[in-house]
C-alpha cells in the first residue's frame, strides 16, 4: 500500500513538530526513520496509524486519506502494549476478535502465529511471566495475525538488550519477507535501520526535516554490515556522533 505525505505539518500548540513534510513510500517498501529523540518521527508514525491527524497537509494510504486507525495499518509499540490481564494467546487472538472473527478461529490462528514467532508452549503465560524479548515476539505475532498491508514499528526493540534485539530483528525480517507488508520503522539504532530497511531517512532536530535519504535497495542482508560501513559512518555523523574521535590506540589506552 502506497503511503504519501504531502505538505504535512503537525504542531502541538506553538510547538512545530513537523513542517511541510513530503515523501512517498512505495508499496512493499521498507523505510527506516532515524533521528534524535523528540524530532517528531514517532509523530509521523502515529499519523500514519491514524492515531493523530496532521494540522495541515494531506496524508494518504493507498490513495485514500488517513482519517482514523484501521487494522490494515497496524502499529507495534515499544513495549507494555500487551494486555497484562490476558495470556499471550488471548493477546494475539484479540487482534482478530476485534475484527469480529469468531473466538474459535481467532484462537486457532493465534496458536499458529505464536508458533511462527517460536512461542509455542507459552500460550497460557501472562506477559509479566515471560522475558521482554518474548513479549515483543508476541507483539509481532499480534501485529502480523491481522495481515496488515502496512506495518508501522515504533522503536519496537528499543527496550531490549543488544543480543535479544538482534535475534528479534531476524525474526522480524523473516516475517516481513514472508508477508511483504509496506513497512515504516522508527528506530534509534542505525544498525537496525541498515539491516532491515530498503531506504533510510535521517531526520534533524525539531521541526523534523530530512537531512539525508539513503537508498539501500531491497537486497538480502545479514547482521554483518561491513559492506555498509561508509553509509553507517555517514548516518552516525549526521546524528551528531563524532565517529573519528577515538583511534584504536586511544581506546586501548582508555580500557587499560
Amino acid at each position, binding site marked *: 500500500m502506497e503511503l504519501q505525505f504531502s505538505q504535512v505539518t503537525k504542531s502541538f500548540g506553538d510547538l512545530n513538530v513537523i513542517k511541510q513534510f513530503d515523501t512517498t513510500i512505495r508499496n512493499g517498501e521498507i523505510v527506516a526513520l532515524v533521528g534524535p529523540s523528540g524530532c517528531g518521527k514517532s509523530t509521523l508514525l502515529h499519523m500514519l496509524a491514524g492515531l493523530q491527524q496532521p494540522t495541515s497537509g494531506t496524508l494518504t494510504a493507498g490513495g485514500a486519506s488517513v482519517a482514523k486507525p484501521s487494522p490494515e495499518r497496524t502499529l507495534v509499540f515499544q513495549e507494555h*502494549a500487551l494486555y497484562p490481564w*490476558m495470556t499471550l494467546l488471548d493477546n494475539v487472538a484479540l487482534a482478530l476478535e476485534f475484527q469480529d472473527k469468531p473466538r474459535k478461529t481467532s484462537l486457532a490462528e493465534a496458536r499458529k502465529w505464536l508458533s511462527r514467532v517460536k512461542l509455542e508452549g507459552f500460550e497460557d503465560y501472562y506477559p509479566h511471566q515471560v522475558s521482554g524479548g518474548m513479549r515483543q515476539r508476541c507483539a509481532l505475532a499480534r501485529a502480523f495475525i491481522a495481515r496488515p498491508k502496512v506495518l508501522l514499528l515504533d522503536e519496537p526493540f528499543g527496550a531490549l538488550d543488544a543480543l535479544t534485539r538482534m535475534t528479534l530483528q531476524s525474526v522480524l525480517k523473516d516475517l516481513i519477507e514472508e508477508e511483504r507488508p509496506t513497512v515504516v520503522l522508527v528506530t534509534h539504532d542505525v544498525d537496525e535501520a541498515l539491516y532491515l530497511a530498503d531506504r533510510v531517512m535521517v531526520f534533524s532536530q525539531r521541526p523534523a526535516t530530512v537531512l539525508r535519504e539513503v537508498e539501500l535497495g531491497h537486497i538480502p542482508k545479514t547482521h554483518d554490515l561491513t559492506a555498509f560501513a561508509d553509509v553507517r559512518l555517514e548516518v552516525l555523523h549526521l546524528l551528531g556522533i563524532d565517529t573519528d574521535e577515538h583511534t584504536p590506540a586511544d581506546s586501548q589506552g582508555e580500557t587499560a
Partner: protein
Amino acid sequence: MNNSQTTGVASKRAYVAAIAIILFFWQVAAWFLPDFLMPDVPVALQRLWEELNSGEFYEGLGNSMSRLGIGYGAALFFGIILGLVGGTLDMVRSTLKAAIIILQSIPSIAWVPLFLILMGFGNMPIIVVVAIGAFFPTALSVMNATESVEKVHISAARVMGASKMQMLKRVYFPAVTPELITGAQLAFGNAWRALISAEMIVGFSAGLGKSLAYSGEIADMTGVMTNILVIAILAAVIDQVILERIKHRLLRYQYL
C-alpha cells in the same frame, strides 16, 4: 507462590490473635460490670448457639442479606457504569467527581427520613440507603481507574480496530478491575454499616439491625452482644472470605 502462601498463613494467624484479644477485653469488661450490663463471652456464645437453632434468626438474616444483596448489587452495577462513562468523558469528569465527593461525605443514614417519606415504610428505603452507601466509592474508584488506563493500551486497541463496545469490554473493564475491587470492598463496608443502621431506625420486618435495636429496647444485654457478634462475624466472612476469593479469581494473573 511460596511467598504468598506464607503471608496467607501469617494473616490468618494475625486474625486469630486479633479475635482472641477482642474477646479477652470483652471478658475483662464482663468481670468488672454486673451481668445485666455486660454478659460473659460464654453466655453470649451460648445465646448465639440457641439463635442459630431458631427459625426467627434465619428470617432476620435472610431479610438483611437480600436487602444487602439488592442494594449492594445495584450500587456496583450503576457505579461501574457511571465510573466507566464518567472516566472517559473529559468534559464532565471533574464536575462529576466533585459531585460524588460532596455526596459521599453525607452519611448514608442521613438519607433515611427522606426515603422513608418518599417511598413509605418497607424494604425500599433500607435498600436505597444501602445502595447510596455503596454507590459512591464504587463509582469514584472506577472513574479514577478509567482516567489512568495506559494510553498505549488504548492506542493498541484502536490500531487493532476495536469498536467502542469492544474497547469498553476488553480494555477498559479489565484495566480498571483491580481498583474496582478495592472500591467494592470499601463500598461493602459502607453498605454494611448503612444496612444495620437503617434497619435499626426503620425497623421494618425482621432483620439483624432490628433485632439489635429490639434487644437494646428491652435491656437484654446478652441479646445486644450476641447481635453485635453476628454482625461482626458476617462482615468479616463476607469481606475476608467471599470478596477476597472473588478478588483472587478476577485478578488471577497478578498472583501467578
